[in-house]
């Protein structure tokens, strides 16, 4: 009755509606539906203006002035003002890691008039642009001032943005469905759309995200024409869909994902670098990826911590990360004086994308001579357990595996897994000051070649020290009905530019 609707099954269900408070991808995706960003990153990883008309840099390179473009309106009809943006940036900068980095250098941020504001920094650099164009992690979405003034640790209660879609709050069912309708007042940019940048033209009336708890069910529903779009097609079910004339299977996020292994540096046996290396040598990417993905079309072994085919690609420490070498592992184990302390591996059982890695890791470690204690639990328990710093015997852990989207691990600043400042670092708490030093240099570097070199060095250190082990890169195909046209490649699934034909 409401004209054209796209029904989509997303990778998970939407419950948390505040895109600043969580890094959950589904909430980020929701953010791109109803909010807009000041800057954006295009398909070629170039920074583009989005809500702003443009920006000016002062001669000393320390002050940026941003000017909003015309016609921006909140969903409640109020115009978007510079004040709103200042408040939004403030809130975001408290939550996002890159934002925090930026905030440390920020000396002043203020609205100049209704449509422009300035940001001044203690040092010259373009960090502000990279931060504000950040497409993932916590993306800097703009909200009206009254909402953006909600403390950063409290979830917002009002969902008013200026993005191309409006949320139909009456139809929101936490965990089940969320419905968006076209924002008639939205003024798209003139440029062609490109990833999260460019003109966000909406051609359908409504977009409905539903959640299905069962992969099989979603695929069947797609085949049966009950849904139009499946964000993540389970690899093993691809053949069913591929053989179907009405359905297109396509990898929309060209950067893909990376699966990683993390060891706990605080406790035996992985407080010993040699033993960490032994574990890393034991694992080989191919079998991890085979078990996890299966179909070689969708994965590649990759030594690059910051992504193969991406700006900071490097082959550093390749011999450790890619092939694996069981003899070397055994030798290192002996050198490290492994005393048979069992390795506690956290194994989630309810989340397909991380179910298989621990199983393969366990088998590899056993082959190398480790004693392994697999502990199965649901993902929520993994999430809690991995934060426990106590020894494995008292509820702690030694190994867990997870996945990163490459867009969040694109460079040493975004990649939270390479942070190595001890107790403040991500779970596993590696303490390698050399890495931190290089990262600081990276943040300050302005020359791309210099950055590449730094990234290369960081990668070598990260892997050799056993901070984070990349276990391969993979790509997630989306499947959608051929009734949809204009589905764009993008690291974030977007629903503008899509047209739906009848019938």
């Amino acid at each position: 009755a409401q004209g054209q609707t796209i029904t989509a099954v997303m990778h998970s269900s939407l419950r948390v509606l505040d895109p600043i408070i969580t890094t959950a991808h589904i909430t980020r995706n929701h953010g791109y539906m109803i909010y807009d960003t000041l800057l954006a990153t295009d398909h070629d990883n170039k920074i583009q203006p989005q809500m702003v008309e443009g920006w000016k840099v002062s001669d000393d390179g320390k002050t940026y002035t941003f000017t909003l473009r015309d016609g921006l309106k909140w969903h409640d009809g109020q115009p978007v003002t510079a004040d709103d943006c200042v408040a939004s940036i403030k809130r975001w900068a408290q939550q996002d890691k890159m934002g925090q980095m930026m905030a440390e250098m920020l000396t002043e941020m203020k609205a100049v008039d209704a449509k422009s504001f300035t940001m001044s920094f203690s040092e010259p650099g373009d960090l502000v642009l990279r931060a504000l164009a950040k497409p993932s992690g916590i993306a800097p979405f703009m909200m009206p001032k009254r909402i953006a003034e909600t403390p950063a640790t409290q979830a917002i209660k009002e969902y008013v943005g200026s993005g191309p879609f409006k949320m139909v709050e009456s139809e929101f069912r936490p965990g089940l469905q969320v419905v968006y309708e076209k924002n008639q007042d939205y003024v798209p940019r003139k440029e062609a759309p490109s990833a999260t940048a460019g003109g966000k033209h909406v051609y359908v009336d409504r977009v409905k995200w539903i959640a299905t708890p069962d992969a099989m069910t979603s695929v069947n529903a797609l085949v049966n024409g009950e849904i139009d779009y499946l964000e993540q097609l389970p690899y093993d079910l691809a053949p069913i869909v591929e053989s179907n004339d009405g359905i297109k299977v396509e990898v929309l996020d060209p950067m893909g994902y990376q699966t990683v292994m993390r060891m706990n540096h605080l406790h035996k046996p992985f407080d010993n670098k040699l033993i960490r290396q032994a574990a890393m040598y034991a694992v080989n990417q191919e079998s991890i990826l085979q078990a996890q993905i299966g179909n070689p079309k969708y994965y590649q072994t990759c030594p690059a911590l910051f992504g193969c085919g991406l700006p900071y690609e490097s082959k550093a420490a390749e011999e450790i990360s890619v092939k694996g070498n069981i003899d070397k592992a055994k030798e290192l184990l002996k050198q490290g004086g492994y005393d048979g302390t069992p390795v506690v591996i956290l194994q989630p059982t309810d989340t397909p994308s991380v179910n298989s890695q621990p199983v393969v890791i366990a088998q590899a470690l056993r082959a190398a001579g480790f004693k392994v204690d697999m502990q199965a639990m649901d993902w929520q328990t993994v999430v809690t357990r991995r934060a426990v710093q106590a020894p494995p015997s008292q509820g702690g852990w030694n190994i867990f595996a997870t996945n990163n989207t490459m867009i969040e691990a694109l460079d040493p600043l975004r990649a939270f897994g390479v942070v190595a400042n001890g107790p403040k670092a991500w779970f596993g708490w590696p303490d390698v000051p050399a890495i931190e030093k290089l990262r600081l240099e990276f943040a300050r570097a302005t020359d791309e070649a210099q950055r590449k070199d730094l990234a290369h060095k960081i990668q070598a250190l990260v892997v050799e020290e056993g901070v984070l082990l990349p276990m391969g890169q993979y790509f997630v195909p989306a499947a959608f009905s051929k009734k949809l046209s204009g589905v764009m490649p993008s690291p974030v699934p977007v629903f503008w530019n899509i047209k739906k034909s009848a019938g």
Partner: protein
Amino acid sequence: MFNFILRRAAASIPVMAVVAAVVFAILRLTPGDPAAIIAGDSATPEQLGEIRRMMGLDQPLYTQFFMWIWRLLQGDLGTSLLSGVPVTEMIAQRMGPSLALCLSTITLSVLIAVPLGILAAWRQGRLLDRMVMAGSVLGFSVPVFVTAYVLILFFSLELRWFPVQGYKPLDAGLLPFVKSLALPTLALSTIYVALIARITRTSIIEVMGEDFIRTARAKGLREGGVLFGHALRNAAVPIVTIIGVGIAMLISGVVVTESVFNLPGLGRLVVEAVLARDYPVIQALILLFAFIYVFINLIVDALYTVFDPRIRY
């Protein structure tokens, strides 16, 4: 009757109290932290602590428990930790599909099973009886999700009669509503048909051995008259009991069925909530289920008086 209801209501208070305490204890002893879910994958420990504080999860357990009970007594079930939506509202949103599924399952099962059970009792020891009984044992023996998959494969993907998944509320039209419920109902019904048919059969056979059946025959009543005029109502109490028990059991079946068929009901909500440690939601739902259980038992007991005039409360 009024007295009876009062008494039962009073008797259910300790039951509910036990439920509340058990549920609370189990949940809070369970590892897993809703704060971590909200914070996401890359959150720092400080952020986590901040969110925990915000949600009151840093309070001592007993404080949390009494806070919960206190609010409960005021009719406040709390809000979902994840979505911030009041639990009552979430329950209201999810009630429809579950209710529809349960009602249709019970109705279908009773409509099929009672005649089947009667038929089996009627032909006791004969082929028909054996077949019904064999079928009913089989009904217990197949996991509901296997039944569900087979039904989907056949009726949805082969015949394309019914949708694979999803729920269409009644306002979307009767036909879509019925279609969306058809397979889940069928899948869930197998076990109840089996259960009720067996009980019907045995209790009718039991009653048919009673003295008053002989009296009825001595009057010159035909077997049909004996069965329907005298046996059935006497067999009703165990049948009603098992239907009541079945409704209580249904909840487990609903959890699985709703997952397979993607029905946005309470069953799925509770599993999601458990996996996400959304305490207020889990607590409220289990209390709700327990309440339904108690309530169904009350109805069943009240129904006894309808079927059996000897039972008075």
